[in-house]
């Protein structure tokens, strides 16, 4: 049985909507406007990470450096800001750091054929260590007002965090659907032989994907710190699993080649709703992790099951 992409998407959207309504009717204050805005604002961090992560998973990789980058990049920017540097150069330094670390991941994958989960795990660990070292494991805060405004202000009634998320969603969607590179990325994950026949360099794509994911992580980390007006050296740990879960819930295929940016962002909203709903119900964050960890394994299993059936089906019709 082949399930068309559109039907899967429709089913997921319906499921999300049903869950949303169920949560709304069952959990007090879930549907309050202020709570919903809060959910989207919290989801923006996961969503931005998920945009970068989707590209990485499409080329059959994974980015485990998020946890480190989400703390390391804002730590750099924060230290610079507190040292009296301007807002723009400080933020640029943090963004640059994230991108460079991402490009380094790309280098390891493209030139040395190191598995993505290893190099990103290592780079993430180095970043975590550096984030802890630079300020002796303490958090920093009390940033300039303009920086805090990015995280908490709004434009025409819409929180800036949400606008940034929409910006990344649009950019990711544009790259994926409207550019030749988008096609090449899918080819790299789905059928590398085609790419080689076309004479397209895989390593350039890998550099781009990991660099972009690092950039997304840096943006998300800065945004998180702007929202909280704090940089804590382990603030990223909670978000890595959520970003991966968002992609997987959004139907991004860990076997590579398949996945859509809007669906991954939708996955981020699902995670955001889920965490928020469980919070309101008084479920402890640790229990939430147990829940989300199980969801990831379950969905990856079901996805694999569906894919093998499809492969069987296509082989049968041929």
């Amino acid at each position, binding site marked *: 049985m082949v399930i068309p992409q559109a039907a899967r998407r429709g089913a997921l959207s319906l499921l999300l909507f049903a869950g949303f309504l169920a949560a709304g009717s069952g959990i007090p204050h879930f549907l309050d406007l202020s709570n919903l805005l809060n959910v989207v604002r919290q989801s923006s961090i996961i969503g931005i990470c998920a945009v970068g992560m989707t590209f990485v998973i499409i080329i059959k990789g994974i980015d485990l450096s998020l946890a480190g980058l989400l703390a390391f990049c804002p730590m750099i920017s924060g230290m610079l800001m507190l040292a009296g540097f301007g807002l723009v150069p400080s933020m640029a330094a943090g963004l640059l750091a994230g991108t460079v670390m991402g490009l380094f991941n790309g280098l390891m994958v493209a030139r040395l054929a190191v598995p993505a989960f290893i190099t990103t795990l290592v780079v993430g660990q*180095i970043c975590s260590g550096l984030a802890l070292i630079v300020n002796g494991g303490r958090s920093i805060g009390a940033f300039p007002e303009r920086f805090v405004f990015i995280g908490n202000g709004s434009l025409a009634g819409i929180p800036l965090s949400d606008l940034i998320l929409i910006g990344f969603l649009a950019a990711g969607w544009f790259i994926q659907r409207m550019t030749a590179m988008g096609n090449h990325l899918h080819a790299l994950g789905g059928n590398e032989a085609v790419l080689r026949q076309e004479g397209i360099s895989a390593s350039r794509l890998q550099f781009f994907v990991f660099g972009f994911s690092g950039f997304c992580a840096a943006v998300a980390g800065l945004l998180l710190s702007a929202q909280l007006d704090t940089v804590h050296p382990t603030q990223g740990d909670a978000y890595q699993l959520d970003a991966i879960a968002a992609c997987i819930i959004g139907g991004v295929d860990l076997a590579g080649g398949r996945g859509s940016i809007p669906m991954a962002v939708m996955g981020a909203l699902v995670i955001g709703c889920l965490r928020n709903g469980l919070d309101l119900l008084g479920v*402890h964050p640790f229990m939430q992790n147990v829940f989300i*960890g199980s969801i990831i394994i379950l969905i990856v299993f079901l996805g*694999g099951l569906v894919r093998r059936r499809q492969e069987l089906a296509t082989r049968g019709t041929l």
Partner: protein
Amino acid sequence: MTLEANQARTAAPAQAGRPGPLLERLGALAGRNASFVIFASLAILAALTVGNFASRDNLVIILKQSAIPAVACIGMTLVLMTGGIDLSLGYLVGLCSILSGILAKTLVLPAPVVLLAVLAAGAAIGLANGLITQYLRVPAFITTLGTGYILYGVAQIVSQGSIINRLPRPFLAIGRTDLLGLPSAVFVALGVALVFQLLIGKATFGRQLRAFGFSPAAARLSGVPTARVNVAVYTLCGTLAGLSGLLFTIRVNAAQPNMGGGVFTFEVVTAAIVGGTSLFGGVGSVVGSIFGVLSIKIIENCINLLGVSYHLYLAVQGAIILVAIIVGNLTHRRE
């Protein structure tokens, strides 16, 4: 001893005609025993540059600190040899720590029962990792990332975030009994190493494991029970992680859910890679991994002795893995 024998054998014909290849062969010999060379050079370097390093007390400390990661590292080596990874290992250590605390202190069970129960719990969780990876065909790093979060959550919930300390004496005796000036944990680690060296080096299982790691498809075609090998490896890794959680608890005399964690997983992976285990599967050895653990513990020890921030150790481990990967890749390419 065998090292020198090998050296003599390879050097003799070289000296007969051409003197050049001797150096080359020495290089190759060093390459084959890279983990020992790394360990020896680090130890010599540390002894020469870091004060207080070469004291007897300090060496005992390094041995004590290496014993527990070594047990876990042997399990991780097996998993890495299949081409997989176990990211849940550190969280399993935390869960087994709190479990051993509850069994030994709250339920007042005798020490051997606690030991068996913790090993069984580790084996059961490892078995679950193996079954999910093998039969549900979820990639190992996703399975273990997921189960890692689950285990961490369960450990926190079971313990309610609290620590159980002052554990009963008979339980502590498992790892703290003094033998020849060393705690028994060191000898437990040696015993585990010996058993697994035989298992990987001499038994059929080791050959099957290497064949599976090099090429699962080829191994299956030549009659290796690949599914069983793969599941067994995760089960063994879980068991050893459980044992190291128990020994850890005994060493610090406190059962705590935060023990181990991602940092410990990373340390163990680093040690295995420094010990010459290939991330691509098929290559790895118990002896290598033990030298790997000793090497990174020497580095940690020096960071402590020099009074540098402990956090530096995390970053340094990352740098070590990167160097090991790059060097391994370059030498591989030259061959």
